[in-house]
């Protein structure tokens, strides 16, 4: 599903955030990416949806090589990869339903398909009854659920999340994790960068630790491995 070969990323300011990463993530896997602050986790994630382009090396997602992908083709990659962030990235002027539908409207999906798909994911994240509410009327956890719903509404093969529970309290974080677990159970590959020790240690998925732009540990069923 995802293959990285000798991925090297040097930012224009000279910082090397990825120093030769090799990794393979299989279809349907659930992977935690851990490591100290500034280790290069977000860079790793960003390269997977081509927010950042590697300086050298190859990144292949679903047979698309992101290192050589033309800019004009990036939209098609993004349609196969759902992304979730710590800060939700919802549009405040759109209600829950519209925020999710937005992702389909801008890729010119037909209205009936939009209606159908949005209703399905609303049910999946348990927000059908709040579909007319606006982001500022929702709790952080609910907002993140909207964001997750949006990320999967186009049935992507991979969902990539950068600290999706970073702004949430422990109880709400667990709700979000359950949600991601359910999505993963439907066959979607999930890659999630996190600082949440409890979640990593409890869920026992594959853990990839990054330090100084290098993978220092890659363990199936591993633990967080750092003092929170």
């Amino acid at each position, binding site marked *: 599903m995802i293959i990285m070969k000798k991925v090297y990323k040097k930012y224009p300011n000279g910082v090397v955030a990825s120093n030769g990463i090799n990794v393979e993530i299989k279809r349907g896997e659930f992977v935690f990416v851990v490591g100290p602050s500034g280790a290069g986790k977000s860079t790793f994630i960003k390269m997977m*949806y081509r927010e950042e382009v590697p300086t050298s090396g190859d990144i292949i997602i679903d047979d698309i090589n992101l290192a050589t992908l033309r*800019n*004009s083709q*990036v*939209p*098609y*990659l*993004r*349609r196969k990869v759902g*992304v979730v962030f710590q800060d939700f*990235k919802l*549009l405040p002027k759109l209600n829950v339903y519209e925020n999710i539908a*937005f*992702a389909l*409207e*801008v*890729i*010119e999906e037909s*209205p009936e398909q939009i209606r159908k798909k949005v209703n399905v994911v609303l049910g999946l994240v348990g927000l059908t009854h709040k579909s007319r509410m606006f982001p500022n009327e929702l709790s952080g956890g609910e907002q993140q659920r909207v964001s997750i719903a*949006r990320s999967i509404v*186009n049935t992507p093969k991979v969902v990539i999340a950068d600290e999706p529970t970073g702004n949430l309290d422990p109880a709400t974080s667990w709700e979000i994790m359950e949600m991601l677990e359910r999505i993963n159970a439907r066959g979607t590959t999930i890659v999630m960068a996190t600082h949440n020790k409890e979640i990593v240690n409890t869920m026992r998925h594959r853990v990839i630790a990054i330090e100084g732009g290098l993978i220092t540990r890659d363990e199936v069923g591993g633990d967080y491995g750092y003092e929170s």
Partner: protein
Amino acid sequence: MKARTLRRHFKESFKSLGRNRWMTFASASAVTVTLLLVGVFLVIMMNLNQLAESIEQDVEIKVIVDLAADEVAVADLEEKIRKTDGVLDVQFSSNTEELDNMIEGYGDEFGLFKQDNPLRHAFYVKAAEPQQTASVAEKIEAYDYTHEVNYGKGKVEKLFNVLNTGRNIGFVLVIALLLTATFLISNTIRITITARRREIEIMKLVGAKNSFVRIPFLFEGMWLGVLGAILPMVIVTVSYFNLYVLLEPKLQGELFQLLGTTPFIYQLNGLMLFMGVFIGVWGSFMSVRKFLKA
């Protein structure tokens, strides 16, 4: 593009116009001022051009024949002139006809000269191309029995010089104004883009094509241009119609005629609208290109 998408882009572009009311007003006004000046400038230039052309058409070479020329020599000269390159037409006017013209033009006092006509025979020559007048005159001057060759030397050249200078100054002015308006529009669009940065970011995250992101802003720029063009179009049209009605009777029989209102005024309106749309879209394009790279 699907009709649904087009509708969406239209809606988005209108929403932005309303949201940035003041910037919309400012940049549409810049277009208005620009196009108004462009319109007035074009009206003046086109009419002066018309004047220049009619003067050009009117330019004749007057060849005054030497007194020493007998009838044969005069006929000979006429033949030579007729065969000169670039000559369209030659009219002979005897000294008697010349005097009659003079009496008609300046009054009966000249009737005195009827006894002893001091005037010479003359040829009136028209060049095929007005621009050739000078060179044709030069050639004729070299022939035998020509006393004097006149063609309003200098006057025509001066008029064209003035026109050209006016045109160049106007051109530079118009370009400067167009650039200013384009700059203002691109600023407005930049503000719109900045205001919608988050929306654009999300659009791109979920896989919207660049064109999809870009088009509403281009539409917005286009509307700014169209909005800005309306007032100048109305003003120039109404003013020109009035001016025409007012001046046309007074110019009856004069060399200078105003350009007819149709199709001139429609062409002018079309041009102004096109310029408005062009600056709008171009200004927008400049901003969009800078901000939505990759």
